[in-house]
């Protein structure tokens, strides 16, 4: 069950935020924000390796909260962060990867749009639909 999905720019401001349960958004935002630090840490540690789809498996950030935060970084330091409820089968690494891949593909499709300026918030309806379907299907 994907709870939240966030895309952050290289400057660490969010380009796109989507949470499934409408409440607790602030909690997710905070979680994602803290996870960005971990992401940066991993990026700097990686050095030459540029393309790595599986960037961040934090496991349980807060054991009591029972969710996991996954991260993904593109070559231009755009970060995708996903918060997943681990009440489902915890071992869904491949699914997470495929979801990130889908996210990345949709993101590049947005980039293809000449009317989109990099760094803007993402308002694309097609992108919203894709993210919704992706998050819903996992539920």
């Amino acid at each position, binding site marked *: 069950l994907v709870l939240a999905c966030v895309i952050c*720019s*290289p400057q660490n401001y969010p380009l796109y935020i989507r949470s499934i349960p409408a409440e607790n958004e602030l909690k997710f935002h905070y979680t994602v924000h803290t996870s960005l630090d971990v992401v940066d840490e991993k990026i700097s540690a990686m050095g030459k390796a*540029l*393309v790595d789809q599986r960037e961040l498996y934090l496991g349980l950030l807060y054991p009591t909260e029972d969710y996991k935060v996954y991260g993904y970084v*593109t*070559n*231009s*330091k*755009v970060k995708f962060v996903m918060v997943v409820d681990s009440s489902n089968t915890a071992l869904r690494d491949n699914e997470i990867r495929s979801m990130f*891949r889908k996210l*990345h*593909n949709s*993101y*590049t*499709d*947005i*980039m*293809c*749009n*000449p*009317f*989109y300026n*990099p*760094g803007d918030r993402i*308002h*694309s*309806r*097609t992108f919203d*639909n894709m993210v919704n379907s992706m998050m819903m299907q996992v539920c």
Partner: protein
Amino acid sequence: ITEVCGAKRVGYFGPAQFYIALKLIAAAQSGFPVRIESIKNELPLPQFTALKSDSEARYGTPAELHGVKFQVPHANLEKNSYKRTDEGDKQEPKSPPMSPICSPPASPSTYQRIPLTYGYGKSRSGLEQQHGAPYEVRHTTHQQDGPSSGNYGAKTALACSTLNRSLSAEREQQDSSTHYLDDPWRITEEQRDYYINQFRSLQPDLSSFISGSVAKNFFTKSKLPIPELSHIWELSDVDCDGALTLPEFCAAFHLVVARKNGYQLPETLPETLLPEYLQAASLKPIRDCALFDSYSESLPGSQQARDFSRTEVSSSEEVPDKSALLQDGKKDDKQALKGSITLKTIPKEFQHLTVKTAAQESNAFRARPRSRSYSSTSIEDAMKKGEEPPTPPPRPQKSHSRASSLDLNKIFQQNTQALRSGWLPPPPPALPPRPSASQTEQPSEVELHPQMNRPPSQAEENSSAKKEVVLAQPPSKPARRKLRTETQGLDTPELSPTVNVTSSLPAVKPHLPVQKQSSKQKRAIQTAIRKNKEANAVLARLNSELQQQLK
């Protein structure tokens, strides 16, 4: 006047008739005889006492619209479209929009009126309209509100006709009144011609692409808000390559026109605007009716499974294009991703051939370009100093890279292979970042595909478009093919995945007669070598810059 303008003959006031009628009114009021020729004079605005200055300004702009460019109607249209509400609106919203819009951008009100007039004429015999046009205009306007729901179809004809007015006011008769006109997302012939002309103004080669930046500038002139233009782009660029082919461009243009006329943009691309449909449109006129039956504007998302034969026809055109596109995309990225991408693209092609549901179509479209765009994105990201991925510079390559993608490395290898024979293609000289790579890639791989005709022209087109490449095409296609086979033999491991797959695709190509060596070819080769070296140097420099940016 009604007789002269032809309304009596056709039975209603179509846009052309209406304009002519108004002109004739002005002529009559100015003292000119009421004849067709009077229209050609410079006429002052007709005075309509019954109406406000609407009609004057409205009328004046048609006269000025002759020869007016595309921008003007759009600027005008925008205001009008925002004033417009739903079709079912009653009288009040109609007349107020007229007046505020009146003065300079009077054509919007014209545009607004015309669909009403037109649709009204269509739904009824339009007898009432044939009375003194001036005094009846308002009446008809109000009366239009009732049958306005039938005006949907008129809109497309309207937009087409109003845009065509700059070309010739008298030209249109009821050609625009085609049969399935209730569908606003269907492009009529005049509209199509107009779009094609506009396409030509942006890109002389009709089979090639309009790059994203060019299209952006063009559509920005329509003064629609950027988010809407963005959405239109997303709808129309089905293969998501950042460039518009002719059918994609027509779809985008049509959406812009529809939006300016007040239609809300659909969530998904209507069937009639899909590229395959637009390409196959000329081939299957009969099926359009069937399509129309199944089409329902209230269900934009419910694109029905396409007519299989239609997809076949169009897919036969599309598949090679897409495969070409994909091939290029793969070449852009020189990594192992290519291998996986190629594998993905092949199933997608087949998927493309099958009868598709809307979901499948979108998936097919998405999946195919996705793999390609993904690969190119990585490098583009690097190029952008850590900014978000691709914008214009990468795009031209992607668009034109639908030809083949012969990696520069391969070309260098061939060159170092000591001038095998006279068929080394002169790779395009150095272009800024990736275009060079894709340029060189394009010519050769192009040859791989069954469509030999397109790629060379496209490669040439691309080179001319880039204005930096002097692409000396190899003398003949067999030469290219031979090169290709050599290239395959020369492949280094890093390129092998792509090459293997691509070589497997054009299975028939490999063995062709050796090209005769001629001094001309040798000279071409040497030129190519020189250019390659330049390209190499530029790329090396660029590479170092990018590396620094990455750090």
